[in-house]
């Protein structure tokens, strides 16, 4: 009896040890350079990325990949948890909006030395685009593609209202006039400007007036006077009252492309990053147009923004860092990679890849390329990185924006309240 029990105990212990150690053993038996790569995005993106990584592996057989891909919000949570336990992937996708938190904590490697020794070749990349991955003179992220804020519209609806040509240098006055005309002639309402991510519009509006969204050190907003942002609240109130903007009930819970009013054929406009146009069209199964967010006089406020970046874990070994830098270079400069990746992550940053993708792409994508070229001509210096607390500030903005639409708060009060609340959050250590 004693023996039996003893054996069974040992058996249990062995099994559990094996179960625990199984995972780490697997990792150990892998080839010398194991690179953990992580990104967020659709199935489409995953397929393209895996293809490129496989291609890289076929050329560099000593490399082995461990891949991890998730949807956006899940990715953010996972990455933060991994950071907390010191298990960040070696090479991972980062976003302009939140990379600063990771950089501030010293979790992301400075890539300058790889840019200097030519591992990552920026010869064919515009300086303005490279700087979007920089902070304090150090390079923390390499953009995998660029996009810009834009408005999508239904050309068929606009045509019915007698509007066949959109001037990309249109102004806010034109915007109000055109949308009102469209509504009066077709009875199809527009969606409010960036109702789902109002921070994108706030940034443009603030930049049009010569301010930045956040102060240099990120402990306050970059502007103080509520009058600067009041027009955006004023517009949503007035156009909603007039029926030109769809009633807030219609859009208050729609965030995904599938839910979008323009996609469903119930609204005349929608807003998003220019790289989203292709997926909007694919979901809507019809032709859509793209144009700029209206100008303030001659000022566009838009700029080329990395749709996402690749960054390297600061704690990875030197050899892994160097290999990861090589992979980044492969993503941005290789012709073969460009053919696979196309413009799924936005317009490629190197002129060589951009040319290849442009030649291969259909008329829809060409529209986006033209738009990006247009913005590139009109852009001013890119915005600073958002400070770590930005997501809380955006959440307050979204709430106030919607409250104005539901007429629960006046535009003036919303503008004042936003500045006050946002500054309180940003100042809090």
């Amino acid at each position, binding site marked *: *009896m*004693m023996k039996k*029990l003893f054996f*069974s*105990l040992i058996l*249990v212990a062995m099994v559990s040890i094996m179960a625990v150690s199984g995972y780490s053993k697997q990792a150990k038996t892998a080839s010398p350079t194991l690179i953990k790569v992580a990104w967020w995005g659709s199935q489409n993106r995953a397929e393209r990325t895996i293809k490129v990584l496989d291609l890289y592996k076929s050329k560099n057989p000593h490399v082995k990949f461990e891949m991890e891909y998730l949807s956006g*919000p899940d990715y*953010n*949570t996972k990455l*933060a*948890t991994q*950071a*907390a336990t010191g298990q960040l992937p070696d090479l991972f996708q980062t976003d302009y909006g939140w990379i600063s*938190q*990771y950089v501030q*904590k010293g*979790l992301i490697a400075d890539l300058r030395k790889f840019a200097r020794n030519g591992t990552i070749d920026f010869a064919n990349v515009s300086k303005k685009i490279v700087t979007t991955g920089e902070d304090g003179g150090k390079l923390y992220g390499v953009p995998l593609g660029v996009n810009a804020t834009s408005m999508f519209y239904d050309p068929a609806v606009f045509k019915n209202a007698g509007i066949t040509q959109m001037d990309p240098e249109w102004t806010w006055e034109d915007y109000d006039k055109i949308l009102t005309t469209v509504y009066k002639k077709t009875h199809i309402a527009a969606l409010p400007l960036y109702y789902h991510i109002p921070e994108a519009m706030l940034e443009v509006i603030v930049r049009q007036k010569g301010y930045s969204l956040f102060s240099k050190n990120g402990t306050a907003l970059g502007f103080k006077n509520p009058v600067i942002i009041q027009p955006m609240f004023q517009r949503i109130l007035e156009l909603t009252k007039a029926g030109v903007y769809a009633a*807030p*009930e*219609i*859009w*208050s*819970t*729609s*965030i*995904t492309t599938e839910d979008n009013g323009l996609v469903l054929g119930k609204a005349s406009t929608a807003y998003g990053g220019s790289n989203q146009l292709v997926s909007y069209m694919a979901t809507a199964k019809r032709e859509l147009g793209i144009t700029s967010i209206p100008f303030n006089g001659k000022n566009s406020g838009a700029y080329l923004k990395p749709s996402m970046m690749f960054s390297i874990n600061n704690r990875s070994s030197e050899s892994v860092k160097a290999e990861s830098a090589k992979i980044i270079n492969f993503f941005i400069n290789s012709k073969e990679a460009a053919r696979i990746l196309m413009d799924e992550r936005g317009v490629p940053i190197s002129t060589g890849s951009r040319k290849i993708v442009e030649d291969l792409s259909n008329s829809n994508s060409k529209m986006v390329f033209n738009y990006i070229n247009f913005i590139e001509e009109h852009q001013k210096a890119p915005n600073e990185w958002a400070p*770590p*607390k930005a*997501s*809380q500030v955006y*959440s307050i903005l*979204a*709430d106030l924006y*919607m*409250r104005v639409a*539901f007429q*629960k708060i006046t535009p003036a009060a919303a503008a004042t309240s936003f500045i006050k609340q946002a500054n309180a959050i940003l100042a809090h250590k």
Partner: protein
Amino acid sequence: VLRRTVRILTGQPGKKIEGNACDMEKVKKGNFFQKDDNIAGYLFISPWLFGFFAFTIIPLLASFFYSFTSYDLLSAPKFVGLENYFKMCTNDDLFLQSMGTTLVFVVAGVPLRLIFALAIAMLFTYKTKLEGIYRAVYYLPSLIGGSVAIAVLWKRLFGADGIFNAILAILGINTNMNWLGNPNTSLWTLILLFVWQFGSPMLIFLAGLKQIPVQLYEAANIDGANSFQRFCRVTLPQLTPIIFFNIVMQMITAFTIFTQSFVISNGTGAPLNSLLLCSLYLYRCAFVFFDMGYGCALAWAMLLVVALATVIIFVTKKIWVYED
């Protein structure tokens, strides 16, 4: 009793009496049998024990610790004392709003669900051939109700072009209202979803109803009570322990509901935070804004509220629960 005496005879004295080899053998066996019972038992529940400690007890204690810190996952937690709790009470309108929303949800949702469950359970006391099938069908929403799929379905049902509006149109009410998009109706749509999943309290009511002695009804019949009187004077009082149990269980469920509001509002609590239940708000604080310390503090505040509500119900138990 017999077994115990045997055990005492064989086991206990063994420690004192150092007898011959044969006796020793017996004593050992006796002792061992006793221990054996326990060890085997612990081994059998060890997977559960492991899960209980790793995924319940330790996280619970950890969250209590973190609730006194400021922790953004990326840097080490910083002890801030009661600051999180202080902020919650004095400087967070959103917390108060979400608590209010949660209370409305609980106070409206739980009684409605129980009334519905009891009504359906009463129907099941009439014997039909299809009783088993009916019972399964009515229990079905409870099995799938917490799922993401149902939340998505709900979004479609109550959308501007959903079935609900189509039914209203048949009844002559033409509207293209998006019931979940309007802050005045969205919470009620969510409550409706909660009420719809009445399966488990229904089964418990059903069991309770079958426990009520038939003689009581017969006596009531002889006294000339009509069916309404029988329900009020016999069924309800006899059922109060079951109602009590259901209220406590359902209230705790209602306080912690999360998936539905998360899916329907895309994780934001929109429109106008009308779907921002406490659980969703704490999720947002912890996993969207990465303010883990505050998220943990919110969780403990929620626990406190649920505990308080439970205590209140227990205190009132004496007044209205009938026990023989």
